[in-house]
């Protein structure tokens, strides 16, 4: 192994170590949150770094086919982010809808209940609308 090859190998290993530390830091961010958007963004960043690390390994080992895997990984990473956002938006819409339905049923029940005081009914309805 010539001096240049040895230096290149050391450089690639150093770069991989730096990126490994960064992945751990981003993983901590993903766990810490606090919002869903933060977590998804962190996962997206980990995907990007993973793709780059695969390319570095491909150069280090001299195996070009690893880059094909990184292309596939890029596609799957993108797809996962898009689908997770869609799923989360769907879950949120479902929760809002079921809360709305529950509210409407509670209002109906309240209207059917014989109340002695009409003012109290008005007050309860106003509170629910808030």
């Amino acid at each position, binding site marked *: 192994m*010539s001096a*240049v090859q040895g*230096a*290149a190998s050391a*450089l*690639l290993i150093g*770069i991989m170590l*730096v*990126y490994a530390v*960064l992945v751990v*830091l*981003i993983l901590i*961010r993903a766990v810490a949150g606090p*919002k*869903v*958007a*933060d977590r*998804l*963004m*962190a996962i*997206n*960043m980990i995907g*990007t*770094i993973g*793709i*780059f690390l695969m*390319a*570095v390994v*491909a*150069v280090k080992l001299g195996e*070009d086919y690893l*880059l*094909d895997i*990184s*292309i596939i990984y*890029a*596609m799957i990473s*993108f797809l996962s*982010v*898009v689908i997770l*956002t869609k799923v*989360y*938006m769907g879950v*949120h819409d479902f929760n809002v809808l079921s809360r709305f339905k529950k509210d409407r049923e509670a209002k109906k029940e309240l209207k059917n209940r014989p109340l002695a005081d009409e003012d109290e009914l008005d007050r309860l309805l106003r509170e629910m609308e808030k």
Partner: protein
Amino acid sequence: MEWVRFCTAAICLISAAFMESIAVYGVYKFRFCMNRMHAAAIGDTMGLALGALGLIILKGFSWFSLKMLIVVIFLWMTSSVSSHVIMRMEYSIDEDSVKEETGGK
């Protein structure tokens, strides 16, 4: 000549690692997810492009370069779309906090 190539590749790769570190620092520094997304985009675009350039220079021009270029172009296109989709989700599920952070717009 080989040393010149190695030094250029090393500068590119170290700059890429530096850019990615800036992105991670920004993700920790900012408090709101839109600002964090801005920081994360640095690593996804500049960091990845510099890293790919460094690897291409280190490896020499071949089919590897073309594949690397495809990866970079694909990630440049998808990174912005992912950011947009994530932000749309955040806006649709928590509109109030986004409006509060952006001054009610």
